[in-house]
């Protein structure tokens, strides 16, 4: 079966000022896969994620060359807000707005022009169900989102991203601040989302990448060292550095 490519980078170089963070990156991400990215700190994982929805450009010192294609279209030719609607991101720490649970999710659809109240209510319910949070919060949608626990907040962030109907979801070490049970719940939600979405997961937790992802890439010092099926990468890595990293000899 030939897999459809959703995201493709060609000779991507990313810099902050003079500091090169990603070097000549070429990789392809397939539709509906969970793509894991592992690597030590400062290996350019997060920069790669944020390059995909152009959030890096919020930093004035950032520059990049090379090409990124999303669904065969060059990123340069897509409006930022349309691109970010289709490629959502979940941040490392749960980032909720200081409004109610309901309004956190309703915000996205509203800025994209959905005004009807019942339409938004339906989106809120569906998104929360997909993020496996509905049962826990359905009776208190009007209470402040900041009162939820960390794990619930992170699932709320997932629901909020789902509410704008993206094609791709980026996860930036989204379980780094969570306990194992919350992490398990979020990983369950990710498995269910696989049917509909392409997911890219950056994580410091190699075990999580091994559990969740189908293909996995190892980044080191801004370079792509190895990319393979997750099972292969974790059992017989071809590069010694990958082997050292996943067995915990450095990083």
């Amino acid at each position: 079966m030939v897999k459809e490519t959703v995201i493709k980078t060609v000779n991507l170089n990313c810099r902050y000022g003079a500091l090169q963070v990603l070097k000549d990156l070429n990789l392809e991400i397939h539709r509906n896969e969970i793509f894991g990215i592992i690597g030590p700190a400062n290996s350019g994982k997060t920069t790669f994620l944020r390059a995909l929805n152009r959030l890096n450009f919020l930093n004035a010192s950032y520059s990049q060359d090379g090409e990124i294609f999303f669904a065969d279209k060059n990123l340069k030719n897509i409006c930022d807000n349309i691109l970010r609607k289709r490629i959502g991101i979940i941040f490392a720490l749960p980032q909720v707005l200081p409004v109610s649970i309901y309004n956190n999710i309703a915000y996205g659809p509203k800025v994209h022009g959905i005004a009807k109240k019942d339409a938004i209510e339906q989106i809120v319910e569906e998104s929360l169900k997909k993020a496996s949070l509905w049962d826990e919060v359905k009776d208190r949608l009007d209470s402040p989102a900041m009162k939820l626990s960390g794990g619930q907040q992170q699932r709320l962030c997932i629901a909020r991203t789902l509410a704008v109907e993206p094609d791709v979801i980026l996860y930036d070490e989204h379980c780094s601040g969570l306990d194992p049970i919350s992490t398990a719940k979020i990983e369950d939600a990710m498995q269910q989302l696989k049917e509909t979405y392409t997911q890219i997961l950056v994580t410091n937790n190699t075990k999580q990448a091994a559990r969740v992802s189908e293909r996995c890439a190892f980044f080191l010092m801004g370079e792509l060292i190895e990319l393979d099926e997750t099972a292969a990468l974790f059992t017989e890595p071809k590069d010694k550095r990958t082997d050292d990293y996943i067995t915990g000899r450095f990083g």
Partner: protein
Amino acid sequence: MTTARMREKIAFFVLGLITLLVVIPILMIIFYIVKNSIGSISWEFITQSPRNGMKEGGIFPAIVGTIVLIIGTMLFSLPLGVLSAVYLVEYARDNFFTRLIKLSVVNLSGIPSIVYGLFGFTLFVLFLKLGTSILAGSLTLAIMSLPVIITATKEALESVPLSFREISLSLGATKWQTVRYCVLPYAIPGILTGTVLSLSRAAGETAPILFTVAAFYLPRLPRSLFDQVMALPYHLYVISTQVPNIPVSISFATCFVLIGLVFLMNLVSIILRSHYRKKKLW
């Protein structure tokens, strides 16, 4: 007790005393004004026009004049100030031009108010031919208020966490939607504080309105934006120094009303602020 703790106690005592010294003048001023105005403050004083060479009657036109000027000032300075600050914080890149603007804003707040008065007189009254009018006076006061409003709004915007902007942008909101829905609402308390502060100052200023709007004696209400009005601070100046034989208690009663007006404005802002602060959860 050890010497270190003794020293700490003494230091706290001294600091408390110094803080008290700051409060004492304010209390004394208020006490003095209330004590001296008590004879003249009445319903008639607040609701009637001055009579008999301002020796009798009330100060109603001056109260209305000052309120009209405050409203006019706010209408010009609030949108201009807030939007400038939004531009500077959210949109402008850091370059020579924007640094120049920021420097000018800081320097504008240091200019003496009489200079604003003369500037307003030449620009609005003479050059733009607005005449001595509410319009010219409000515009002059607005320019004087701008730096404080801009600075306060800037600080309020900068104190909104960067993550709010990232959330909004990452959901595909445009820059303006982000500012409108995820930044400005959380900056309102700070903007409010700055605005009320600068408007209170505008309410009490004499110099900027001296040549641009204030009337020496005009015992009727303004009919249009091109009318002159009486204003409390200028009226106070007039009855205290320009007209002989006016009872001192009338001057103090005017003071009392002016301070009361400013106090009311501050009260409104405190109430609004605490209302918004309840929603602040981060």
